[in-house]
């Protein structure tokens, strides 16, 4: 996966030990890294005859969701007033993201999906940890 090189905590404790800002940053980085490859993937599969319309629409839906998720997380960070050096971080990640995206384009479809599945799980877990850190009262 193109995001494998990103240093992400691979365990619960590791994730929990991360400060919130870093975690958020990480999430955003991940989401950013997938933005470009997803759109590219959507273009790519549109030409596939064997895929049903449902699959195509789902894929589009997913890329939209990723985008919305990223926007949402950014909003959350604003509201929580995290002092993330987001601008810097994002800038650098942008560059990194581009290079990564190029890599992503080379992956096969099944690998792509596999990597995406994993990374979305990662993002989900991090977000949940983040949520319970920020708002511990809701079902945490």
């Amino acid at each position: 996966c193109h995001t494998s090189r990103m240093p992400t905590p691979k365990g619960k404790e590791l994730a929990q030990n991360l400060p919130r800002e870093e975690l958020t940053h990480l999430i955003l980085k991940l989401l950013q890294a997938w933005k470009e490859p997803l759109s590219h993937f959507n273009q790519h599969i549109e030409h596939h005859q064997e895929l049903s319309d449902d699959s195509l629409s789902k894929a589009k839906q997913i890329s939209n969701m990723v985008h919305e998720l990223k926007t949402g997380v950014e909003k959350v960070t604003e509201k929580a007033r995290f002092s993330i050096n987001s601008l810097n971080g994002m800038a650098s990640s942008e560059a990194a993201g581009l290079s990564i995206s190029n890599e992503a384009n080379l992956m096969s479809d099944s690998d792509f999906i596999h990597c995406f599945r994993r990374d979305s799980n990662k993002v989900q877990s991090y977000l949940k940890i983040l949520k319970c850190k920020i708002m511990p009262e809701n079902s945490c």
Partner: protein
Amino acid sequence: MMQKFISSVQIILLLSWTTVCLFGQSFPGKPKIVRCRSLEKDTFSCWWKPGSDGRLPTNYTLFYSKDSEEKIYECPDYRTSGPNSCYFDKKHTNHRTTYNITVMATNEFGSNSSDPQYVDVTCIVQPDSPVDLSLETKTSAGVTDLWAKWSPPPSAHNSSSWHVYHYELRFKPEEEEKWETVSVGVQTQYKVVKLNAGLKYGVQVRCMLDCGEWSEWSPERQIQIPNGQSPPEKPTIIKCRSPEKETFTCWWKPGLDGGHPTNYTLLYSKEGEEQIYECPDYRTAGPNSCYFDKKHTSFWTIYNITVKATNEMGSNSSDPHYVDVTYIVQPDPPVNVTLELKKPINRKPYLVLTWFPPPLADVRSGWLTLEYELRLKPEEGEEWETIFVGQQTQYKMFSLNPGKKYIVQIHCKPDHHGSWSEWSSEKYIQIPSDYRVKDMIVWIIVGVLSSLICLIMSWTMVLKGYRMIAFILPPVPGPKIKGIDTHLLEAGKSEELLSALGCHGFPPTSDCEELLIEYLEVEDSEDQQLRQSHNNGHPGKNAKMTSKETDSDSGRGSCDSPSLLSEKCRESCTLPSKLPSQDVREIHENNAGKKGWETQCVASSEDKALPFNIAGTKSSTWPAANTHPSTFAYHSTVDAQKITLSTTNVNAAPVLVGNEEKHQSRYSTSETLCEENLEKQREMENMHSKNDQSTIQVNQNKLNEKSSFLNAKIMDYVEVHKVRQDENSAVLLKHKENNGKIEKYTISGNSKEYTKVSTVVDHNILVLMPDPRVQHTPVYQEPAKEMSQTLQQGQVEKNMSYCLPVPSECQREAGGSEYMDPSSFMPSFK
């Protein structure tokens, strides 16, 4: 001598012997039962060998008895198993019994029976083979033993309860031919020793009952004797699981160990790394397992796991197994499942189910989010009802049946990829039955009330049954024929009835005629006196009518009544039939400025004939008529009756009375015409009284408004519009064109005034002609003349008189009273 004697004796003996030999017949020899065998299951056969048959045809019969019973049976089947045999089929084969069999040979001379043979069926039936033969090799200390185990044949009859099976086992190496047989005894397992390692052996086993035969050999089982030299077989990894998304465990299944003690090692590597690690913990999770603790567990990385089996001879590795821990999470079932029955006020009690996530799962930090699902069913029920609950840890159940016992279970699953946990232990709920006193009271009250109502209903039915029935099911009204008084009919007073119809006497007598003629004579001013007389007569008649008024209101056969007049007046009205012509003539002669009649009381020979009234518009014209005696629009009997009535009701209609005289002729005529309708006129009187107001008003109006017209002919004759050929053959008169309103019938120059009956056509049609005397209609004079001429010719066809019936509607409008309502006539004559 002696020699001779001896020789003769010998000869004799020889002869007799020969004879005997030639013709030697004696009773048969003793048969012998050879054997009894069971060829198939649940059947057996016995064979015997016959003895000498004594040279005579011999019958063999087999008798048997069971156990110690007295009863003797005969062989059921002599044929199936061949000659000299007896076949016992399923029905006759009882496994638990001992048969005592004898065969008897019979011929002419006598019979001879064999010795009895006792046959225990169980012993002669071949048993089934043993089943479930399994082989196992156990190697210890370099020595490999083969253990064979089996089960006795399934005995359906339990006949072998006191019979014991003996077993025999045989084995041989695969390649060889010769079996080595071992007698096992009564046990169902055996250890075969001294087997050559490395060879494949086949094993069979059979059994026998102590008194019976050997069964067939069981199917062969083969086994490979492990060679002490071989490496172990490849193990297989069964599964890997993580209970809380922090650690995980893998289990494997070993293969054959190849005769030597085998070691198993688990080796893994992570994705992206080349290094291979060994399982950190073989023990915690039990034999043939590997436990990865927190430190060694990484998420979002794929593990490549293999198990290696090693023994002295070598090693063997399993296939690699790839695992990402994120996706193999299977939590433990929820714990602390508690039930609480809550009983809110005024509401049904409900159940609150609460539970806790499994202790290991770290839900608090959000690392693992669980979703729950519960299922419940009534205790006796079969199907579970599964309810997905989501992430909450409590659930309210409202829809449970009181009094029943339910079983509840919960399980959980990670919200993302993962698998469901096991179901929690069963929890029983007993719903308390909901017996509220209030409900019962309500039901009791309802029951009492309904029973009361039923009682009341039945009482009313009983007391006022008929009325109720009449109320519910109103009686069907009988047909009311106008002019016929049903009561009179029933009473049988035909005379009265007929008189009611105005026909005095039946058949009509000359009286009728006279009267009619009388009336005819009355005309104009000349006849005013007559009219008056008639008028006087009228009251009398009216009085009569009044007197008769008390009669039923039906069937006043007047010209007005469409019905019956025809019937009753059929003959009595023959005169009237003549009337038109006469009348017209007379009118014509009189030149009184009167208008001819329009109305004739016509009784057709047909039943349909109904009194008709040629009418212009009814009351409207009538007022005109009233004001102008000369102008007389006689629309209908209604009108006539009105007029009649007016004659009688002096008080009621002064205006009318005024013209009465003039119209006497009319009235009278009408009356004569409708002599039958005296009663009817009475009716009209009554009706008229109703309509007095309107008519009077109209009259008055007419008088006021149309005074100028009054002198002129006001008669408003309505053109014959059409003749209704239906039952009430009615002549509908067209409304005058110039008159926009019904009420107003102003006589204009354009209007034709048909005042006289011109002719009668077709039995149904009355052709009217305008009054030739009417001066302001000179136009029509000619036709009138013509018509009058034709009339004068007296064309009355067929003695048919027609009564133009009052349109039925009008009658109806009278409300069923059969009084014609003049006002109601108005629209009909449009």
